[in-house]
């Protein structure tokens, strides 16, 4: 297990380095760094001084190492728009995004797994066909348009739920979240459902496919031949097996939800880092873009690591291989 962890950590560092090269080249080298880092109002003399001060006259690889050294110290530059360290801006907005994505993950699991189980166990039932048809629609709905329709129906026409912002924030056990106040909950419903819907459809389909595949296995028939109750066969034998692909996909999907929060946050004016990155792209606030990208890469690496560990806990076959390797 420790060997496995060390190897995975080393892989993660490599991925982080590769991504930093890509981001550096992408944002600093392909775009003109002078335009990025120096105020357009500056005159010629100021520009030249700034170029020298920022080291932009040095070779590219040297610049990269300076960037890397600064990044290691947590310095990813200052936002032009807010005139604040870019990293601090990201950290300020990260909780809102995580709150939104977390709520969406829970919602999609709570809805997706039971419906997928049902559709997989009774593939011929009319309800199952309804669930599957619904899942195709949920899967196909473009998030942004679906969000607009939510606002139109639930905020404009019915007036039931607020459509913008995060609402009141409460504190519970030292954690600040809008999930702890009624007003905050009302605000989180529409964006979270919007974000969760496509993911729930995916989980329904995945669960159903897994159930159908597992039900054909001999060990399920053997379990039934042992006289186990239907509940035990489904609840233990089937569920434990479909959990394995499910954990992998849900892990990837959490990452996906954090990224797709960009869309939902822009529509519902949710003050998370997704809205920040879109605003930054539109305002050419490149240090914030870089900080966002590096943070999200880090976040994904951590999530992937957690998924791998979970995977080896659930699947005994993987565990053995890693002990040997």
């Amino acid at each position: 297990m420790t060997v496995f962890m060390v190897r995975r950590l080393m892989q993660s560092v490599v991925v982080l380095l590769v991504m930093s090269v890509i981001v550096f080249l992408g944002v600093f080298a392909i775009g003109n760094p002078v335009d990025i880092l120096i105020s357009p109002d500056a005159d010629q003399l100021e520009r030249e001084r700034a170029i020298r001060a920022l080291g932009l006259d040095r070779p590219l690889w040297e610049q990269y190492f300076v960037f890397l050294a600064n990044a290691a110290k947590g310095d990813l530059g200052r936002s032009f728009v807010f005139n604040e360290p870019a990293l601090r801006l990201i950290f300020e907005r990260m909780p809102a995004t995580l709150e939104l994505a977390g709520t969406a993950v829970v919602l999609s699991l709570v809805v997706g797994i039971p419906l997928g189980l049902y559709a997989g166990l009774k593939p011929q039932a009319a309800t199952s066909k309804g669930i599957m048809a619904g899942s195709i629609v949920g899967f196909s709905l473009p998030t942004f348009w679906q969000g607009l329709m939510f606002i139109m129906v639930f905020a404009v026409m019915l007036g039931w739920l607020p459509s913008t912002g995060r609402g009141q924030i409460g504190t519970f056990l030292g954690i600040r979240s809008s999930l702890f106040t009624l007003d905050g909950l009302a605000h989180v419903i529409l964006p979270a459902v919007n974000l969760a819907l496509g993911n729930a459809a995916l989980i329904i389909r995945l669960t159903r496919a897994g159930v159908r595949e597992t039900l054909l296995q001999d060990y399920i028939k053997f379990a039934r031949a042992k006289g186990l109750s239907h509940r035990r066969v489904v609840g233990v034998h089937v569920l434990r097996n479909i959990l394995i692909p499910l954990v992998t996909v849900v892990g990837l999907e959490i990452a996906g939800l954090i990224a797709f929060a960009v869309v939902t946050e822009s529509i519902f004016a949710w003050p998370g880092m997704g809205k920040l990155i879109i605003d930054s792209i539109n305002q050419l606030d490149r240090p914030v873009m870089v900080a966002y990208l590096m943070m999200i890469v880090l976040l994904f690496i951590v999530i992937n690591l957690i998924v791998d560990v979970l995977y080896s806990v659930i699947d005994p076959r993987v565990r053995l291989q890693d002990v040997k390797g």
Partner: protein
Amino acid sequence: MSAPSATAPGKIETPFRRLVSEFVEDRLAVLGAVVLAVILLVALFAPLISPQNPYDLSKLDILDSRLPPGSKSMDGITFWLGTDGQGRDMLSGIFYGLRTSLAVGVFSGILAMVVGMALGLTAAYAGGRTETLIMRLVDLQLSFPTILIALILLAVLGQGVGKIILALVIVQWAYYARTIRGTALVERRREYVEAAICLGLSKPRIIFGHILPNCMPPMIVIGTVQVAGAIALEATLSFLGIGLPITEPSLGLLIANGFEYLLSGKYWISFFPGIALLITIISINLVGDQLRDVLNPRLKR
């Protein structure tokens, strides 16, 4: 466990006929295929069937702007789906938007398939370092959500049709590459490949003549899913204002234009293009879904 054999004697079935007959068993999938065909025709003949050329500014009248569905214009045309903020007929806008959205989606899908298959087959055949390099790249690519990669690329590259197609190809190629490599590795160990090698056929002949055709079923399934995904992604990026430029409006941009009017109850500007987008994606997914079931030998009874 011995399953009863179920071969119907006397009836000669070509594989294609069998696929078609299994495909039409799901009525929903047939509906999807028909709707998709209609959408493709509409997109293809948009200039001929649109009541108005929505991008000829001389034809637009600002007095016609934001009319609800069914209204008549100053010069007597009926706007069945209403007009947008510039007095543009929504129906015509949707026809033209479909054209752009589908063109971008299908073209990037085909390009990604070609690139992905080339790299995937190279990986499967070259082995060694080349394979490791390509597959690492695939892993890296697939561990990041499509929208994020597209965001980064477009933020760096800027807007434009060519750039968005490039971004869509970059986010899609890895799916094809991974799948075709997997299938090719399985197929090349099959007896028919060994037989072909024994017959002294050339390597390209074996790859393109024997292995590739057998890799096609999963490629087709992925292709449908990916095209649907590409259309949705392009619409999303255009909606966020970093996709196609205003001169090439796709459905996403039409929907974005309606956002500001939505809160005042003028729903149709965003609603109808969204419905068109939704129907397009659903019909592609319905077809893809059934294709997956039909082409998957594991679910056969």
